[in-house]
């Protein structure tokens, strides 16, 4: 929408989505468009990007997407607003507006707002819930009402005693059901939340939304609430910044599009920097350089001073991966199927993998079990639509 050299105001629309899978982009700060080019994100190389030079002198009025919606907006209204605001549900990395539109086809019975992040050192969701409990609950209730779900759940870590007490008071007189769970990784996986809270055992590969469960994290709920109430688009994200090389680790509000180098400069470094990870220690992606930018789905940035080299040896069939797999897979069998390039792996259910990475962590042979499971899962995912189309 914009051109190089054009001044922009905060929240101004700077790019429009080309299809319904995309999201619009908004300027996080007042400034001038410098360049329209490409950047690397943790998941993708050469994403299109618009560089804005912030202009601290210029006072531009933040723009709004429109008048506040009513307290109990209709579904269509809400979907339009969320799509315009570019709110993405980081649980499943799908635009929230589109997820709500899917809920129109398949009725959703339960909305789960999750604040548990059990992989160290993630804390941003819990922190946001602690700071804005009523806003989060209000937004979640708005979504629940709009899609006509029966029940709203709020999950918190049972180690955060003070937060649980505060929330018990907030939840009094509101329809949300508060559940404190042990933050045992990977409890926050939507599949396992549905299993723990509702006793649902989803068929392998099925999306929780198809089973009538919408799982949101606190950040997404708050963003939806802001978009509806004040018309604010999604421009900033609360990140956990951690790792042993970070001087001042903690939760930071960071503009989407900020480079990791700027984040690094802000938090400071102590000790050498060996590895930079976007995400938590279990599932994060190590990035090759600091020009990578923060996106709407970046949960955390870790600056690590250590690295590990465990040369893999052959599988010794110890069974640790099977013992620890939260969904009951046999990761060792998946690895051998992947290495042998077996054509039929349907008996091993690779699509049930929730990609938590526990198998790789516990393997005494240091085998890349997670990678094999991810590849097979991706392959099974490609095959399924093809099979569905053939008959």
């Amino acid at each position: 929408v914009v051109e190089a050299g054009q001044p922009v105001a905060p929240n101004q629309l700077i790019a429009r989505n080309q299809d319904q899978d995309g999201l619009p982009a908004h300027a996080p700060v007042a400034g001038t468009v410098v360049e329209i080019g490409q950047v690397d994100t943790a998941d993708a190389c050469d994403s299109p990007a618009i560089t804005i030079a912030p202009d601290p002198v210029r006072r531009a009025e933040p723009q709004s997407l429109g008048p506040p919606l009513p307290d109990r907006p209709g579904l269509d209204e809400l979907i339009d607003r969320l799509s315009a605001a570019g709110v993405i549900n980081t649980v499943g990395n799908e635009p929230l507006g589109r997820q709500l539109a899917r809920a129109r086809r398949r009725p959703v019975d339960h909305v789960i707002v999750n604040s548990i992040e059990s992989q160290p050192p993630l804390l941003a969701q819990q922190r946001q819930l602690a700071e804005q409990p009523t806003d989060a609950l209000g937004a979640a209730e708005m979504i629940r009402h709009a899609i006509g779900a029966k029940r709203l759940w709020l999950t918190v870590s049972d180690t955060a005693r003070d937060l649980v007490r505060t929330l018990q008071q907030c939840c009094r007189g509101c329809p949300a059901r508060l559940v404190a769970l042990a933050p045992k990784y990977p409890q926050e996986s939507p599949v396992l939340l549905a299993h723990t809270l509702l006793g649902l055992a989803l068929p392998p590969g099925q999306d929780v939304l198809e089973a009538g469960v919408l799982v949101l994290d606190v950040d997404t709920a708050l963003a939806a609430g802001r978009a509806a109430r004040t018309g604010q688009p999604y421009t900033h994200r609360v990140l956990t910044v951690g790792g042993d090389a970070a001087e001042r680790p903690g939760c930071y509000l960071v503009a989407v599009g900020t480079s990791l180098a700027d984040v690094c400069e802000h938090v400071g470094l102590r000790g050498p920097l060996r590895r930079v990870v976007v995400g938590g220690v279990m599932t994060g992606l190590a990035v090759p350089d600091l020009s990578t930018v923060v996106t709407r789905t970046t949960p955390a940035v870790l600056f690590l001073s250590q690295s590990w080299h465990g040369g893999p040896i052959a599988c010794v069939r110890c069974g640790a991966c099977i013992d620890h797999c939260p969904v009951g897979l046999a990761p060792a069998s998946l690895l051998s199927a992947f290495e042998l390039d077996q054509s039929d792996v349907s008996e091993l259910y690779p699509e049930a993998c929730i990609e938590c990475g526990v198998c790789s962590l516990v393997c005494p042979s240091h085998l890349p079990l997670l990678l094999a499971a991810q590849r097979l899962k991706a392959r099974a995912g490609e095959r399924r639509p093809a099979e569905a189309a053939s008959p």
Partner: protein
Amino acid sequence: MSRVHHTDPSQGLARLEVGSAPHLAPAASYTESVWTYIAVACLPLGAGLAVYGLGAARVVGLSTVAAVLTQRLIGAAQRQPGRAEFAHSAMVGLLLGLTLPAASPWYIPVAAGAIAVAIGKAAFGGIGHYFWHPAALGRVAVQVLFPEKLSPGLWAHGVNWPFLSRGHLLTGDLTRACTADHYIGWQETPAPPGCEAWLAPRPEQILRWLADGRTELAGGADHPLLAAIRDALPPWRDTALGLTGGGIGEGCAIALLVAAIYLMYRRHLRWQIVVGVLAAAAAAAAILPVRIPPAGSGDGSWLWLPALAWPEGLPAGPIYVLYHLTCGDLMLVACLLAGETVTTPITPRGQIIFALALGALTVFLRMYALPICAGYWALLAMNTIVPVIDRRTQPRVLGT
């Protein structure tokens, strides 16, 4: 379109590494598990050195050195040095040494170690790829190759094995052995002068004779179990402490159990294996019949459920079951060999099935087929059907 660089790449930051998740120090490696096995195997080895003399160290040393040297030769041929493979071969050689009798001639441990590593392990591709426990394979191979050296008169009566007598532990000489006229227990029987070791049949052998219904064991009109326990078998305490003839590491059940408990505590061994093997062995010994020798002529009759035998108000049946647990190679197989992860089923459910079948098969073979190496043969047989067990005990995936 040009690439946007938010920062100057020449900022002087060290190059970043990339690698797959998880970004945490990985779990303890398999090599660590191997070294722990080597360390705990020294317990039964120590007990063996005490009972069979320091000369037994020669047998264990030879088998270990042969195993490591074979690995070295194969590694040189493959140009694939792997430190894990060397540690593993040393473990195989050490465990193999524990299965051999202390009086073996030098070429038996050497041949066993070479066979265990070359055929039992490297021929399949090394760690993680073999089907049969290499140490058990090496032991059984030398048993087949040199039967007269390892089991003189396999089927004959008077199969006597030496062990040191009281006052001669560690330093005694096994070759200066004599048979006792009236052996009433290791502690109670003083050795005659000039005699440093006893020659006696292994308790396992006596259990075998009991199942055979040999008339010598039947002391007149007494119950055969009672007669065997009273007249033929050494006191049960001696079998638990390993003060009997047998393989170097087979005898001392207490040392083996301590080793297994430590391995389980360090999570290198699953309790399902040890408990399963011992429970099934006890059940098999309790159920499988022994033969009552004929009173006059004829074949005699079978006594099923010997564990329930309670002749003359004495618990001969339960004691007989305890003998089965502490004698022979069963305890060594249960505590140190069967837990080898590569050759056991991968799921706990499969491991229970494996262990139960292994324990029962060991007692069955010992009673009716092979009075020597029954546990090793049973282990190899069960290793063979591991793929079948694995296929039938796949874990259940959530939602299926």
